[in-house]
């Protein structure tokens, strides 16, 4: 028996499998549903780790769609600023220069779209934080870019299941797919595996903030 078979066997645990999810029920708070969902996830997705799902659920309790969008907006502010600066700081040329320009444009569009959506939902968009990106040269830029893009993918993947509005969810999905495309392209530039795992693991808000904290001035 391979390791994978073994882990499937262990995690496809009948006690966990009986946890019922009723996402349509208005009686349950979303976070409660999510927590139960996270517990059941271990049963449903034997191949994926249970731990991160549970932590993610606990970490995100109580967030409204506006909160989640503001969290996303903070990350997009960071990425937009990072690439805008990189146009001159990264010393990129040729193909990479075009990529930096494309990424700067995409992230700026994400900032604008998220800002508009938050306002539309009656919320107040967070102010743009001040950032300090400590890197030098093209290599330093690429290393940071990979961290930001991979973190961005995992942040959206972690937060999206908490989104209540289906429309906001669909739109966030449209953004995370583009972040994943960016991540793959940057990884190719770094000669790294562009899709290192079959599943992009979700990160919770705390994990994401810990990753980006060093760059908040």
């Amino acid at each position, binding site marked *: 028996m391979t390791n994978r078979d073994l882990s499937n066997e262990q995690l*496809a645990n009948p006690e966990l*499998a009986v946890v019922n*999810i009723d*996402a*349509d029920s208005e009686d349950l708070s979303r976070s409660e549903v999510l927590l139960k*969902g*996270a517990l*059941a*996830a271990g049963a*449903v*997705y*034997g*191949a*994926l780790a249970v731990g991160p*799902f549970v932590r*993610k659920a606990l970490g995100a309790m109580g967030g409204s769609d506006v909160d989640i969008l503001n969290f996303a907006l903070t990350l997009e502010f960071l990425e937009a600023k990072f690439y805008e600066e990189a146009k001159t700081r990264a010393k990129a040329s040729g193909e990479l220069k075009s990529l930096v320009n*494309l990424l700067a*444009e*995409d*992230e700026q*569009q994400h900032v*604008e*779209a998220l800002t*508009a*959506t938050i306002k*539309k*939902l009656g919320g107040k968009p967070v102010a743009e934080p001040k950032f300090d990106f400590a890197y030098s040269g093209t290599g330093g830029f690429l290393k940071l870019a990979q961290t930001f893009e991979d973190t961005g*993918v995992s942040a959206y*993947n*972690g937060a*999206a*299941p*908490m989104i209540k*509005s*289906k*429309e*906001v*969810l*669909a*739109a966030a*999905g*449209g*953004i*995370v*797919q*583009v*972040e*994943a*495309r*960016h991540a*793959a*392209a940057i990884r190719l530039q770094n000669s790294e*595996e*562009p*899709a290192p*795992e*079959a*599943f*992009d693991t*979700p990160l919770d808000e705390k994990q994401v903030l810990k990753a980006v904290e060093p760059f908040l001035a």
Partner: protein
Amino acid sequence: MAGMKQLAGPQSRRRFLAVGGGSTALAAFLAACGSDSDSMSTSTTAMKPAGKSETAQFGKGDVGILNYALTLEYLETAFYADVVKSGLFKGADLETIRKFGREEAEHVQALTQAVKSMGAKPAPEPKAEFPLKDAKSVLELAATVENLGAAAYLGQAANIESPEVLASALAIHSVEGRHAAVLNTLLGETITPDGAFGKPADVKTVLKSVEPFIVG
């Protein structure tokens, strides 16, 4: 090649949408965010929430969506396996194709497990045949399949009922996006054919595109 021609449909549409640039993309996003403005939503019919029965032929509710995804992952896995066997690629490109194929196989495994854990029957593996003429057309087909796969997941995200199924579908969706970007790069095409916002594809469009490869 009839199949390639069919597949050109959604890709051309995405390219068309991408041409609109920033303001169109923003409008698309806002339309997706529950806008009641018809003028904005008309240009983005693909963002329209799908009817509940869109994947009914694959099963009820989330099971139907998972089985739909499973069918697509089976096709992708079979495709990459055939491409590896074809001998059209070597070196780094072959390694990339092998890697992607292994990841699709992992998706098949996870989705199968998920359907079974929900007490339902996983969709059968379709018998498939792919035109494998030369490296370039195979790469083009791979790119089309991956871009379509990513769009297919995106098209179902908002229809998924249980958060844990959604979390797992998203974990797969972004990997399909990564694959698509790599193949687009190999072809010298833009990594983001939809612009700054990925566009979803509905079930009908996706099935019509893969139909030419399913035999019996």
